[in-house]
């Protein structure tokens, strides 16, 4: 990598108050300050955001992609974590 190569940043945009930041894409910038500004220009040109996070792509640790991974499979067999698991008599409200 030459000195002129700018690192890659992942951009997360909060589209409006009350929602969480979601991944919008990535961009190149020499440092965090410029990454924020570039993200503003690139990903919120049409007023798509009220708040931006930028994270160096290299700083992200990701889980393994394999779907049969031990990472996610155990969560799939715990239906009692979901409200639809429970039977509620008809007519009972506010549950």
């Amino acid at each position, binding site marked *: 990598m030459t000195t002129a190569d700018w690192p890659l940043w992942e951009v997360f945009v909060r589209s409006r108050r009350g929602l969480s930041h979601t991944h919008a894409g990535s961009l*190149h*910038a020499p440092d965090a*300050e*410029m990454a924020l*500004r*570039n993200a503003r*220009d*690139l990903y919120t040109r049409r007023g798509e955001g009220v708040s931006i996070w930028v994270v160096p792509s290299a700083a992200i640790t990701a889980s393994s992609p394999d779907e049969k991974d031990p990472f996610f499979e155990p969560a799939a067999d715990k239906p009692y974590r979901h409200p639809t698991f429970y039977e509620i008599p008809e007519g009972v409200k506010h549950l």
Partner: protein
Amino acid sequence: MTAQPADTRTSLTTVSRETDVPAAAALALGDDALVLSHRLGEWIGHAPVLEEEVALTNIALDLLGQARVLLSMVGDEDELAYLREERAFTNLQLVEQPNGDFAHTIARQLYFSVYQHLLYGQLAAGDGPFAPLAAKAVKETAYHRDHAEQWTLRLGDGTQASHERMQRACEALWRFTGEMFQPVAGLDSVDWTGLEAAWLESLEDVLRRATLTLPEGPRSAPWAAGAGRQGVHTEPFGRMLAEMQHLHRSHPGATW
């Protein structure tokens, strides 16, 4: 065809009398924005990095938006932009200066956006006819100023080569900065002395942080530069207008 610019000037005075907008001030501010927007538009497709294509165009679009509001206060925006002769434009000579390298463009942006931000700050605080526009523009110019300052820091305190280019650019454009503080007729509420002091203070601070030296040459002189507000411009401006106006003038009376 040749009579058109004169007609435009006449109708513009009439309109301005009817609406109470200080026409000279609207034109001065509008021409600044129009001309700088045009210069920034020349960068499109030539920027040093793709992200900067987007950033420079954002600034150009903000300025064009300001210009359209300001010119429309005086008359028809297109007649004013396309049918006035060079001497009828009252923009600062600073904004018409050619783009040069990226350092020159950033130095021009820095000088102008700090000025514009401070000026619109004052106008927004008042209750004159420009207050509503200034309230919106002050937010835009805050961003333009930030963009210019960020790049001034990076070019000034980047590599030896970028430092030299940035210093050279600051020196080259310095002579055009005194003109910004000539009082503009119709902007009576503006404290021009205070504006100049604040501008200088801000420039000193940014350039120092960028490891650059505040230029020492004259900031305006009758023999040097600084009569844009009186309609006297520099050589490159005529060419710029020729390019900008040629198509519109080639089809008199056409709508686009």
